[in-house]
Structure formats: C-alpha cells, structure tokens
C-alpha cells in the first residue's frame, strides 16, 4: 500500500512538472510511463498472477457496476490460482470496442448486447445468471407494460397510440426492447406512433412512479422491479393495469412480454478455452449465500441458456447487428445502380439550378419577410414568456405568502405559549403546586393533548407529582406510562420522545394502552444530582406525524422551567425546615430558661389537687362523712389536675416538633396562649399584664406555635428590660392587637423599661445581638425570621417617655 501511494506521488510530480509539455509528442511516452508505473503493482506484488479483465455493462454507472461485480472478480481470483480478475465497467459502445480489440477476456452484459457481440465478434456464453424469487430460482425474465388502472382509455397495447410512454433507454433490453417487440407485434412503432417516448434511465422505480403520478400514460419496466415495489408497499398493484398480460407457469410475476434468458457471462473468442472452462466451473459452484452472490444480488450461475429468442427479438427490431445488415444491403443496391443514380442526380441538379435562379428574388423577399416574422414571433414568445413568468411569479408569491402565514401562525402560537409559560413561572401569587399545575395545563393545551403527568423517578419508584387533564385518563398511583419510556426519557436527558401512534411504538400491555392513550409526548426533567422527573403528555387520538422541531424546543424549555421550579421548591423547603428547626431549638431554650418558673407554675395546681384529695380522704374516715363537702373537694381536685394538665399541654405544644403546618390563626388566641405560658414569670417579676385585644380580629394564615413564640419572646424581652429598672416597683406590660385597613393585623407589646439602646432599634433583630449579660440574642432574630416567613413586618422602637414598643404586622387570609 505504501508502495502504491509513493508511486502515485511520483506520478503526480511528473504530471506537475510536465504540465506545459503534455501536448508534446512525448505525451504518449508519459502515458505509457504512467501506465507502466500503475500496472507494475501487479508485477511487484505477484509476478506470477495473470490479469483477467471482465468487461461489465455499466448500465447504472461505473461505480455501481464495480460495487456489484468486484466481489465476483475477487471470488474468481481466489478460485482460480494464478489469475487476478478485474472488473472493467463499460458502456455499450465501449464494450463493443473492447470486444473488437480484445482488451477484455470475459464480458458480462445484457442478453441483447450479448447476441449482438456474439454475432459480430464471436463471443460465447459460458453461464447464465440466476436470480431468486421466493423459493424459486429464475433464469429468465420479462417486462411489464403498465398504465394507471383508472385510465379507461388504455385497455390494450393498441390503445397506446399517440400516448406518452416512458422506458429506461433505447438500449435497455428489459427496460425497453422487450416491450418494443410486443408493441411492434401489436402494430405500434414506439418512435412513430407514440406522442412522446421518454427515456428516463435508471432507476426503474421512478418510471413506475411517473405512471402513478400521471406524468406519462404508460411505461415499461422489468417485471420484478414492478413486483418488488408492490411487495415493499411503495405502490399498490391495484393502481396499475398490466397491458398485454402473459401467462407463464415459470414466472411468479405479471408479464406483458415474452420471457428472455437472463444476463450471460461470456468469454471472448481469443480467451483460452481452459481458462473459460475453469471460470465457468467456478461460477457454477458459487453458493447463493456467498458474499459475491449477495453483492451482485444474484442466486448464482447456471449452464448457459439458449439465447435465440433474444436474437429473434433483435432481428424483429432490426437493431444490433441486424441494423448493420440492413444498412449493408442498402449500400449494395446503391453500388449496383450507381450510374443511374448519377444520371438522375445530374438532371435533378440542373433543374434545381434553374429553379433556383427563378426563385432567388422571391426567395430574398421571403427571407426578409421571414426575418421580420421571426422577429415578431420571438417578441410574441418573449411576451408570452414574460406573462408566464408573471403568472408563475404571482403563484409563487401566493404560495410563499401562504407558507409564511402558516409559519407565522405556528410562531405566534409558540410565542403566546412561551409568554404564558414565562408569566406562570414569574407569577408571585401562585404557589409551587399551582405553578406546576398551570405549566402542565399550558403545555397540554399547546400540544393539544388530553393529559399531562409530572412524576418523580427514584430508582424503581415512580410517583406522580402533578397531573393535568381528564382524570379518567390519568394513571392512579404511579408515574409514567411504562418503564421503557421512563428509562428512555432519563437516558436521553433532555431529548423529547415523540410517539404519534402508540400502537406502533408500544406492543406490550403498558399503562399507555390501559389508559387508552394513542399518542404520546414525553421528556426527562433532570435535576442536578437529585431525583429525576418525567414530564409526559398523552392524547386519545393518534397524530399524523411528529411535532415540529420548534414544538420540541418548546417542550425542552418547559422541562427546563419545571426543573427550575422543582429545584427552587426543594431549596425553599429545605430552608423552611432549617428555619423551623432553629425556631424550635430556640423555643426549647426559652422553655429551659423558664424552667424554674414553669415548675412553680405546675406545682401550684398539683399541690392544690393533692391537698383537696387528702382532705377528702380524711373526711371519709369520719363517722358521718359530709358527702357534699367531699364532692366539692373532689371537684376542686379535678380543677387543679386539669390546670396542671393544661400547663403541660401548653409547654408540650410549645416545644413540639411542628411540621411547619400553616393554619388559620386568631392572633388574640395566640396572645392568650403565650401569656398563659409566661403568667408565673410575670407574677414573679411583679409585672402587671394589661390586655387591649380587639374583638373579631380577621384570621391570619400561619404557624400558630411560631407566632406564639414571637409574642413570648417580645414579652420575655420586655420583662427582662423592666427588671433592670429597680426604682419602679410595679411594671406594666401592655399587649395590644388591632386590625388595619391594609388587610393586616398587628400585635403591639409596650413595656415600661428604659427603652432600646440608642440607634440600635435596627440592629436589635440581628442574630446574636444582645444587650443582656446572659442570653444569646437569638430570640429576637428568630422572631424576625418567623415574621418575615409569614410575609409580615417586625418593628421595635423606643417610646418618648419611657419603655419600648415591639410590634409585628401580618397579612390576613384572603377570602377567595
């Protein structure tokens, strides 16, 4: 190989250097040199191998001929030691020259050409090609002449007169000549009687389609071409009528012509008989499943058939060597009567000269006239052309306008959908679930499908997250239509799975089928390193085709936005969890600080209960127990126990792990709960608690415990602030609630302490800001987080005279 490329490089150099002199007398020696360099490959690689050339009729082009027959040459090279077979693709003319000059050793050509070469150059067939049709091997073939079955005017070959006809080429044996003969037999000369004969060349499929599309009235193709197209459902046989139907037991196809032997493999006159025999044997022993046979699309070779039917055809058509014979006989006649011809010729010439002289003037006038006419004609023609162009231009403009309008409509629809999607993703009033719901709904409407399902996939677990559309069509418990689709969506991250017809795509008894879905559209929604989701749409109708590329892009955008939304929600939830936990820890520490006070608080009713119970026991031991008194005592005991239980309940409620659940809260109730919890602390610090609670306060949506925590923090903060003011014996703590016009409710806590440190009312809610010696300064910062999480405002300020005011304001629940 290396050797070859080196050599080619050398040739290129020689060519380059000698470009100017290529037409010199030396050019021949150059070509000879090049040929020598090219062919010495054989000499170098295997000095003993003799090159055998097979001239192949390249009716479908050189490349195709090589592709088809090179494996056959290689096969022969391996079978016949000492020979290297080569394929030379040749056209009809070249094959004729090659046969004449003997530059090829064998030839493989169509039967017509073969009989021609046989007659002219004495080539001789050694094998005939076999093809397979189903279970049958075939060695003969024929052609069909077809027309559209709805063409009532053409029932038999005679009807083809003045019709447009299509065939492969004038030289094509199966592709024209077979039909030609049948037409002649029925009194139709294709070149005289047809309105038009179009030679379309290969492939023959387009000829069949030309008939189907009414481009021509009738056509001929090889019989199996037509049959194969029908088998592949490319055409419907019922759309066509086969003219001049022939019946042959040996042919599985419909035929319009006689059968003729298949292509022969022929040896040239001068090819050694021994070599030809060896080649024939090698060909006969070629197995059908051999790669050479497969490449050639044949079933093998068989003993050579009788090609006289072909010769008969050639003779009938007066083509090939028969055409030459006809010419030869005409020449002979001319030779025989040559002097007659000459005399008649001279007489004619004299007459013509005379006539010419007379008519010269006339002719000149006519010439001028003709020139003018021609000019007029040309002008008219160009005017017509212009008119035609204008018409077609208008048509084209119309067409383009229509196209643009459709495209614009699609774009407008997409734009509207996209805008809707953007609106949904940025709508502050929608919560997470509503937002997903709206996204699905919009997608469903856009894609015109009946249901949409968003499901999470964790391992094998499929869980429906959000659905939209007809509830009857939705899967009840688990997610996507089936495992296969789910895996596909996850594996093809971000690529849509677009199934216009489910029945064709899914053969198993999937949910898809169970749900009665017939079209499907899905995409994976991938969250980075987290759970995967699938977004799926399905419809009850099959779709004609897949959605446009643009629609797929919209789907991808949707999937991305849903992923963003899900991630945002996850982040939000995790933050909420942290805040909730932090708030709880803070409450625990608050309760811890209040432990002594709470123990006393609990001790009071417990002691009471014990006292009442013991008293009653004592009274029961008396001789005449006073039952009225005892029952009264027990009532008191129960009262005490209940009170103790209430306190425990309050504490437990306060420190429980709340699930961050929001409920409808009465702010006044929250104030009362907080005050109960702190009542003893208030008592101990000699603080007088004053309530100014507005009745009938609108409800707010929030976490009750957390709101209580904020109130408690405010109160504890105030109590401690007041404790530091020693000169006043009786402090007052005012708890006030009110509703405002701005749809909010407000809690205000006013103490009688020293107020806030100057310029620190802003900092007071910062974490770890504390003016106290003990305490971490968490309470107020937690309070701020809680209120802000409730979309509220928290404030602190010093009052003019003395004391501080802490307040928060929360939005009330909107009544739908």
């Amino acid at each position, binding site marked *: 190989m290396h050797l070859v490329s080196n050599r080619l490089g050398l040739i290129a150099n020689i060519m380059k250097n000698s470009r100017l002199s290529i037409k010199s007398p030396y050019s021949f020696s150059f070509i000879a040199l090049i040929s020598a360099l090219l062919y010495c490959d054989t000499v170098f690689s295997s000095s003993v191998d003799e090159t055998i050339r097979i001239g192949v009729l390249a009716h479908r082009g050189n490349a195709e001929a090589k592709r088809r027959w090179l494996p056959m040459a290689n096969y022969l090279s391996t079978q016949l030691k000492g020979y290297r077979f080569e394929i030379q693709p040749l056209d009809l003319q070249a094959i004729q020259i090659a046969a004449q000059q003997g530059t090829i050793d064998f030839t493989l050509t169509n039967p017509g050409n073969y009989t021609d070469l046989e007659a002219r150059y004495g080539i001789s067939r050694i094998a005939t090609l076999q093809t397979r049709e189903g279970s049958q091997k075939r060695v003969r073939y024929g052609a069909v002449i077809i027309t559209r079955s709805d063409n009532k005017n053409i029932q038999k070959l005679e009807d083809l007169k003045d019709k447009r006809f299509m065939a492969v080429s004038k030289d094509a044996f199966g592709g024209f000549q077979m039909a030609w003969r049948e037409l002649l037999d029925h009194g139709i000369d294709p070149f005289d009687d047809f309105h038009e004969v179009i030679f379309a060349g290969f492939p023959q499929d387009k000829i069949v389609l030309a008939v189907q599309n009414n481009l021509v009235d009738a056509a001929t193709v090889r019989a199996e071409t037509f049959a194969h197209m029908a088998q592949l459902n490319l055409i419907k046989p019922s759309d066509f009528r086969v003219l001049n139907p022939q019946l042959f037991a040996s042919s599985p196809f419909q035929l319009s012509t006689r059968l003729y032997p298949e292509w022969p493999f022929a040896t040239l006159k001068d090819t050694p008989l021994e070599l030809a025999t060896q080649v024939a044997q090698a060909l006969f022993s070629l197995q059908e499943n051999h790669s050479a046979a497969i490449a050639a699309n044949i079933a093998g070779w068989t003993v050579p058939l009788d090609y006289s039917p072909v010769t008969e055809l050639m003779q009938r058509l007066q083509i090939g060597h028969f055409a030459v014979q006809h010419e030869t006989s005409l020449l002979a006649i001319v030779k025989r009567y040559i002097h007659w011809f000459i005399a008649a010729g001279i007489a004619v010439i004299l007459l013509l000269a005379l006539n010419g002289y007379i008519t010269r003037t006339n002719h000149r006038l006519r010439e001028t006239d003709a020139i003018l006419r021609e000019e007029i004609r040309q002008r008219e023609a160009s005017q017509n052309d212009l008119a035609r162009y204008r018409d077609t231009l208008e048509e084209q403009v119309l067409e383009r306008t229509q196209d643009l309008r459709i495209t614009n409509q699609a774009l407008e629809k997409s734009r509207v959908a996209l805008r809707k999607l953007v609106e949904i993703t940025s709508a502050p009033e929608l919560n997470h679930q509503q937002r997903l719901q709206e996204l699905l709904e919009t997608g469903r409407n856009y894609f015109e499908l009946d249901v949409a399902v968003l499901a999470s996939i964790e391992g094998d677990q499929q869980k429906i997250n959000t659905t939209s559309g007809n509830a009857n069509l939705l899967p009840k418990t688990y997610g996507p239509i089936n495992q296969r689709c789910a895996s596909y969506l996850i594996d093809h991250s971000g690529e849509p799975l677009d199934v216009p017809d489910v029945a064709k795509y899914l053969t198993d008894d999937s949910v898809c089928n169970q749900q009665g879905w017939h079209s499907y559209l899905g995409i994976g929604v991938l969250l980075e390193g987290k759970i995967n989701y699938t977004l799926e749409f399905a419809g009850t109708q099959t779709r004609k085709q897949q959605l446009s590329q643009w629609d797929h892009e919209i789907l991808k955008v949707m999937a991305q936005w849903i992923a963003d939304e899900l991630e945002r929600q996850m982040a939000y939830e995790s933050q909420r969890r942290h805040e909730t936990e932090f708030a709880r820890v803070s409450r625990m520490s608050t309760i811890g600080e209040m432990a*002594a006070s709470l*123990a*006393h608080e609990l*001790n*009071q*009713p*417990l*002691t*009471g*209960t*014990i*006292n*009442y119970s*013991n*008293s*009653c026991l*004592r*009274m029961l031991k008396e001789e005449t127990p006073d039952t009225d008194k005892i029952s009264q*005592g027990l009532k*008191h*005991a129960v*009262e*005490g126990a209940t*009170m103790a239980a209430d306190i425990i309940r309050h504490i437990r409620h306060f420190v429980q792990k709340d699930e961050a659940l929001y409920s409808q809260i009465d702010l006044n109730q929250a104030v009362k709960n907080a005050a109960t919890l702190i009542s003893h602390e208030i*008592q*101990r610090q*000699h603080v007088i608690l004053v309530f100014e609670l507005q009745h009938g306060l609108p409800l707010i949506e929030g976490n009750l415990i957390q709101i209580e925590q904020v109130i408690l923090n405010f109160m504890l903060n105030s109590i401690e602030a007041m404790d530091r003011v020693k000169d006043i014996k009786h402090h007052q703590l005012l708890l006030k609630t009110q509703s405002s016009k701005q749809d909010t409710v407000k809690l205000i806590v006013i103490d009688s302490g020293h107020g806030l440190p100057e310029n620190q009312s802003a900092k007071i809610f910062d974490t770890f800001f504390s003016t106290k010696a003990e305490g971490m300064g968490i309470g107020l910062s937690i309070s701020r987080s809680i209120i802000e999480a409730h979309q509220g405002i928290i404030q602190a300020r010093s009052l003019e005279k003395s004391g501080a005011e802490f307040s928060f304001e929360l939005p009330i629940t909107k009544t739908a």
Partner: protein
Amino acid sequence: MTPTVYIIDDDRMARESLKWLIESASLAVKEFQSGLDFLEQVTTSMPGCILLDVRMPDINGMELHTQLKLREIELPVIIVTGHADVAMAVRAMKAGAYDLIEKPYSDSLMLELVQRAIDADSKNRRDKSYIRDIKSRAEQLTPREKEVMQFVINSTQNKIISAELGISIKTVELHRANLMNKMQAKTSTELVRLALMAKL
C-alpha cells in the same frame, strides 16, 4: 381564742386547698391574699401559726417577718416553698422562721408541722402569761424586799444579808418571809426558777 392557722398565699388554688386540708384536721383557718392584708388585721392576741408562701407579689417572706417582729407578733411562721434550697432554708431560719416545707408536701407532714407550730405558740403564750404573772407578783414587792430577793436568788445566807444591808437578822428573816409569800414561792429554789424565768 382558738388557735388559728393563717394562710398567706396569692394563689387561690394553693390557698384554698391548704385551707381544706387544715380544716379537715379540725383546725381553724384564716386566708389572706397578701402579706399586707394580714399585717393590717393581725394582733398579738391571735394564737396559732402562719403558713406563708415564699413568693409573694407585694411583700416577701423575709420582709413580713421583720414587720411582725416590729408589731411584737410571735406567731410561728412556716415557710411554704416551691423549690427549697439550703441557702433559702438557712436564710429563712436565720430570719426566725419556725420551719420550712416544700411543695408538693405530704398532708401528714404539713398537719404535723402546723400542729407543732400551734403547740409551740400556745406554750409560748402560756410561758409569757406566767412570766407576766411572776412580774406582777414582783411588782408588789417593796424595794427592800426586792433587794433581799436578789440576795436570796444568789443563795446568800441571812447573816451575810443582814451584814450587807446593815439590818438585823430578824428583819432579814421578816422580809424574806414576806417576799416568799408575795412571790408565791415555797422554797428558795422555786424562787430562783421564777426569777430566772421572768429575768428578774
């Protein structure tokens, strides 16, 4: 007057239940919401004891003690506390509390404590009236008899007393007989006991 238990507690439940408990032991009870209320009503002639909750909004246990002392009221005070510790107990006892009891308490312990306090109070009251009696007896003594009584208490012999006072033995013997009679003491030993009691 019957001895009465004075309960001072601002917590209604604690106060009333304690009243029930003590009444069930057939003792008289009086409730007070605050120490100040009690101070307004209290007199020396009220026997019994005080049950005082240590946490009071207006006046705490220690302050109440001081006020009572100023009013010469010696009712034993039992401190009732929710959470007693050693420091508090020491403070309370130093301030003169009779005892300290921690909530929640057993009824028998509370009643026993109350009973002991009442007993202590009545003994205290008995002692005090006896002393007052002795003192009034001593009031009846003449100055000379008082002088002689001091010598008798110190177990001085008549002979030495006559020499000390410059009076005859006979006169000493007469004064001695008179003062023994007035003091209602049969023997000089008894006189010594009375004098020690009344700190004569």
